[in-house]
């Protein structure tokens, strides 16, 4: 479960988050919608402790992430997987080394055998429809869609309890977008993972969300099931959604 209470964050005079309150129950997929620069990624980075709030608290599965530092925070992050907007694959490592990275670090602590690491890496790559032929390739040799899929495999390989997706479908073609949406749904159904998805892709958001929220001017101006948000009377939400729905 993710609990965000009265979260405030500013960068200089730029007040990005102004008192966000949000609860995401265990096993739910929550999508945060919003325009570019609305603070969606800033909100997500607070959940995993990459940013510290000016005020407020973030709790994940009972642990107050916003109050942790150093080794305690590093250990708390073992419950997370995160897919970054630009995939953020390590460009000095092959695909295998990238996907195996979280496991190899875990292996130091939990004695996972090298054979098991290899088996789990190939298994997760197969889940995202990538075969063993990509194992020794470098990230620079992959297409944008393949990089996203490798990033997804890397996020899921250590069986996290919470997965954070930062713009998982941005820049992908419709077929790959549909595929990634399916992956997010599968991860939730098969593994019972709690997911937070940051997106401005309305079609994807309505497809994968159990509930969603719309972030505008530092506030969550609408929150609920896709049907409830669709009926929101907030002027920004109406404009944001109507532009897209009118095109359909």
């Amino acid at each position, binding site marked *: 479960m993710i609990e965000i209470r009265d979260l405030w964050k500013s960068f200089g005079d730029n007040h990005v988050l102004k008192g966000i309150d949000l609860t995401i129950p265990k096993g739910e997929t929550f999508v945060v919608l919003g325009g570019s620069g609305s603070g969606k990624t800033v909100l997500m*980075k607070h959940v*995993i402790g*990459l940013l510290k709030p000016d005020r407020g608290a973030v709790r994940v599965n009972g642990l107050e992430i916003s109050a942790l530092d150093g*080794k305690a925070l*590093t*250990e*708390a*992050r*073992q419950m*997370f*997987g*995160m897919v*970054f*907007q*630009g995939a*953020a*694959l*390590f*460009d*000095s490592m092959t695909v295998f080394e990238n996907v195996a*990275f*979280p496991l190899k*670090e*875990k292996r*130091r602590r939990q004695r996972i055998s090298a054979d098991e690491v290899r088996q789990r890496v190939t298994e997760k790559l197969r889940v995202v429809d990538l075969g063993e032929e990509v194992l020794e390739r470098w990230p620079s040799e992959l297409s944008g869609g393949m990089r996203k899929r490798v990033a997804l495999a*890397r996020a899921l390989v*250590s069986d996290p309890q919470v997965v*954070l997706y930062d713009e998982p479908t941005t820049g992908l073609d419709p077929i790959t977008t549909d595929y990634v949406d399916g992956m997010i749904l599968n991860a939730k159904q098969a593994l019972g993972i709690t997911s937070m998805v940051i997106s401005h892709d309305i079609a994807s958001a309505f497809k994968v969300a159990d509930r969603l929220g719309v972030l505008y001017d530092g506030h969550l101006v609408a929150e609920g099931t896709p049907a409830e948000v669709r009926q929101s009377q907030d002027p920004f939400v109406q404009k944001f959604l109507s532009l897209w729905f009118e095109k359909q």
Partner: protein
Amino acid sequence: MILFAVEMVAWAVRPPFRLELVLTQMAFIGVGSAFIVGVTGTFAGMVFALQMNFALKQFAAEAFSGGAVAFSLARELAPVFTALMVTARAGSAIATELGTMRVTEQIDAMESMAVNPIHYLVVPRVIASLVMFPVLTMLFNALGYAGGFVMGVYVARIPIGPYLAHTQEFMDVDDILHGLLKAVVFGFIVAIITTWRGYAATGGARGVGEGTTRGVVASSIFVLLADYAITFASVGT
């Protein structure tokens, strides 16, 4: 930067100890820089021997050239030139690599996977620098003295006996140790400044470029300042 250095030291003593990463960085910083350090050392020794011979000949004291070359190399030229050459070759690459990782969110990704980036990226580079700067300094010393020997004995025709005798007379182990102490300090300075500049890079390719430039300039200046401070503390006025 001071907080960054303190955090690095705190993480350096915590397990797991990533020996394979330290060895990789030792190969990059040390083995990879051996050629340029060797070439610089050889030519520095050759040129310094010729200059010493030219100056001391006026007092009929050219046989002291060998001692002067060895003494200057050990205490001053080898550690400083080595630090500046490694800053240019490896320090700039370290700042660029970490800067690129920062602006493409690779460092954030590492943190999200429960791996502290200072522990994984910075500590191995600092340890490798602490080990390899003295090794490279000794390489510079050896090749610099060899280059000076060839110039002094075979080109300037200084008799080999007095050349070697005055080297032994001028030099002792403390001179070598003085240079190696400087090399360790310079290694720490260069590694901390360049990793920090890369680690704190912001704003895309331009930010990475700026971070690299600042890292190289600041490292060079702090090496020269530290050189003065250590020399002053050691020999006084």
